[in-house]
């Protein structure tokens, strides 16, 4: 099997590994996987980038990624490292990832957000823009709680996290 093809196979497997704090959204679609290396002895090295600092799920994610990859019969071993010098931003979430989030009542982060400014997103259920921020800090560091005044449902949204330009 060609190396390229092996990487594709690994990516396929990773589609099934979710962030436990965002069930149904794969780590791949969240943009957490930065590099996949396959060496000549079919050992795999995955470099990942954590979403929020202090995210308590990192150990679980690391284990799940390792386990999933090691289930491929040609793989002889797998190591996962989180790189803390790489920056994750919500812009790294794929289109597919955004759709998955919505399906589970979580709005994807707004586009064109400027750090420090207030933001709003449309309701994931009825798509109304008539929403209000209830608590910017939700059940996990990456989520906020909003309320839809149109369909009267509370919902969650992923906080926009993007690079800060320094003057």
């Amino acid at each position, binding site marked *: 099997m060609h190396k390229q093809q092996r990487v594709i196979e690994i990516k396929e497997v990773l589609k099934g590994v979710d962030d436990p704090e965002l069930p149904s959204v794969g780590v791949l679609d969240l943009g957490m996987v930065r590099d996949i290396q396959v060496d000549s002895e079919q050992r795999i090295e995955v470099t990942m980038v954590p979403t929020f600092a202090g995210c*308590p799920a990192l150990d679980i994610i690391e284990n799940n990624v390792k386990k999933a990859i090691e289930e491929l019969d040609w793989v002889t071993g797998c190591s996962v490292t989180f790189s803390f010098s790489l920056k994750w931003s919500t812009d790294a979430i794929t289109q597919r990832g955004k759709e998955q989030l919505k399906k589970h009542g979580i709005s994807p982060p707004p586009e064109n957000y400027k*750090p420090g400014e207030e933001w709003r997103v449309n309701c994931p259920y009825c798509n109304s823009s008539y929403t209000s921020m209830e608590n910017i*800090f939700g059940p996990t560091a990456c989520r906020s709680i909003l309320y839809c005044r149109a369909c009267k449902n509370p919902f969650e949204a992923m906080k926009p996290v993007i690079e*800060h330009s320094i003057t």
Partner: protein
Amino acid sequence: MTAIETPEQAKQDRTYHEALVDLVYQFADDDFIISFRGSEWLGLAPHIEEDVAFSSITQNTMGHAFLFYQLLEELGEGDANSLAHDRRPSERKNAVYFEKKNGQGTYLEEPYYDWALTVVRQYLYETFKKVKLEAAAKSSYQPLAATAQKILMEQTYHLAHWKMWVTQLQHATQEAKVRIQSRVEEAWKEFGDALELGSKAIDMKKLGLLCGEDELKQKWLQEVEQHVASVPTTPLEKCLGNGRAGEHTEDLKQAINTLSEVYQSDREAVW
């Protein structure tokens, strides 16, 4: 200033290494102690939404402390977990104002904590953290610059939160105004060392690790003047001591004893 890319490179120059380590301890210890004081509010914040928000900020800030302790681990200072939990007060570099107790009583027995102190302290702290991180994002030590950038992306939410509290309370009842103002005046007597960089300040600037103390102070003051209604005109003092030089109060001992009790009882716990 030439960029230093790796810890190995940083270790080659003793002056550089020493100044860098001192600076990273300041970042790590400040975040660590402020998030400990924050965690003591768990379940006691003014309302349930605030409880959720404050504990989320605290957990995130503890995560930031660990990013800095990891940098120190890479620089040869030892295991990140023991750096956080196993160092004596005299080895800690956090500014003294951040270790101050939340109020009278203890978490378990009649905690008479003062929300005005917390709002003022968290606001002054997050403003200071932003200014210092922005300087660090331009640091000659690339791993520090990258970490600072990453933290800034998340910290913007913390600052916005405390800005909102400070602004709202200053526009609320007379009692709220007075209590905020008296905590601001108190802070002016105690915040001084936060804006200092310790005995290696000159090296830090010369080696491009961070800007100078004057610039840090000036930028902080500029921000604070925009949100605090009446900024004291007296110079900032450090009546509680100078944490950057390892001088600390009994309050830090109390914090470390509480923290290490949990840590010593289960060293393998995941933090």
